[in-house]
């Protein structure tokens, strides 16, 4: 069979700016970089804390420098955005049935957000109690 002659449009480099949903998606993907940074920062913190007072003091000096504080403020906002948008998508991947009744999406998303807040509150309590 002979292929029909056709016009094949090129994908515009700014395709992601064409629609709000695409933009939110790309932002969510980009914030993964800050999620990775937050994880690496936590590992560095734990390593310094386990290495002794000198190492920990050195890490605190590093963490207190203006650019690290600024970076972590941005990372906090980015990871919060990543988490909220990620958890909002959870109902699309989870079909939960209780005795035949399909649990609505807002309850699944709400459950995920509640669990996230509870774990965050627990971690904050453990870290800040001293």
């Amino acid at each position, binding site marked *: 069979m002979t292929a029909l002659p056709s016009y094949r449009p090129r994908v515009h480099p700014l395709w992601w700016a064409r629609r709000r949903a695409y933009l939110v998606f790309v932002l969510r993907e980009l914030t993964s970089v800050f999620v990775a940074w937050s994880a690496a920062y936590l590992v560095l913190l734990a390593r310094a804390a386990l290495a002794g007072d000198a190492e920990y003091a050195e890490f605190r000096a590093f963490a207190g420098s203006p650019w690290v504080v600024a970076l972590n403020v941005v990372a906090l906002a980015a990871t919060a955005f990543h988490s909220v948008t990620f958890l909002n*998508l959870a109902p699309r991947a989870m079909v939960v049935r209780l005795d035949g009744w399909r649990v609505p999406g807002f309850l699944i998303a709400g459950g995920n957000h509640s669990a996230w807040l509870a774990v965050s509150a627990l971690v904050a309590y453990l870290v800040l109690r001293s």
Partner: protein
Amino acid sequence: MITLQVSRYRPGQDAEPVFQDYEVPLRSDWAVLDGLAHIKDHLDGTLSFRWSCRMGICGSCGMTVNGEPRLTCGTFLTDYGEGPIRVEPLRGFPVIRDLVVDIDDVLAKLAHVKPWLIREGEELPLTAEYTQTPAQLEAYKQYSMCINCMLCYSACPVYALEPDFLGPAAIALAQRYNLDSRDQGDRFDLLATDEGVWGCTFVGECTSACPKHVDPAEAIQRYKLTAALTSVRNLLPWGRS
């Protein structure tokens, strides 16, 4: 009257699509498809577009209306105020002529996922019935509502960027059979691939574009979970079948 800015592409005449304006009557009961039919019948008989049922069942009249993938039979002129309304072919597909796109690739992908009931072992006689409970029907019914209009493919940036991606409708169709209690098929090797569910980055626009509320994004994410669990099970010595 309202202006329709219609994308024209005439092979051999146009190097790339160009827009042509047409004035059509603005009637409250007219859909964009009625406007295109008016152009075809009264203004310019050379305009080409697909249509059939005019009632949102056949899935033939999908086009891009003011940047959004829509069924033109269910998109009304009055939804766009005084206009103009820009009508283009579905994005992500090669354009054959005017508003007609080449859908062979998607049709091949739909067939690729083995969209039929697969039975293993002894077959029941042809007179036998494969009964289902209402709950078993409900498990896959949503995914059986797809009309192959391809709006989901047009909304999917992954398909536009990676044409090998199996795509939303084909994976939802596979799930329609995977979740059918009468089906005994194994579509793991077809779906758990980079071109299958793992190619999906979960933009979610396929579901927003679907006029039949099939929710292909949900179908894909659900199979990702199934594929991940199956992969883990296959790694375990006692999990291999």
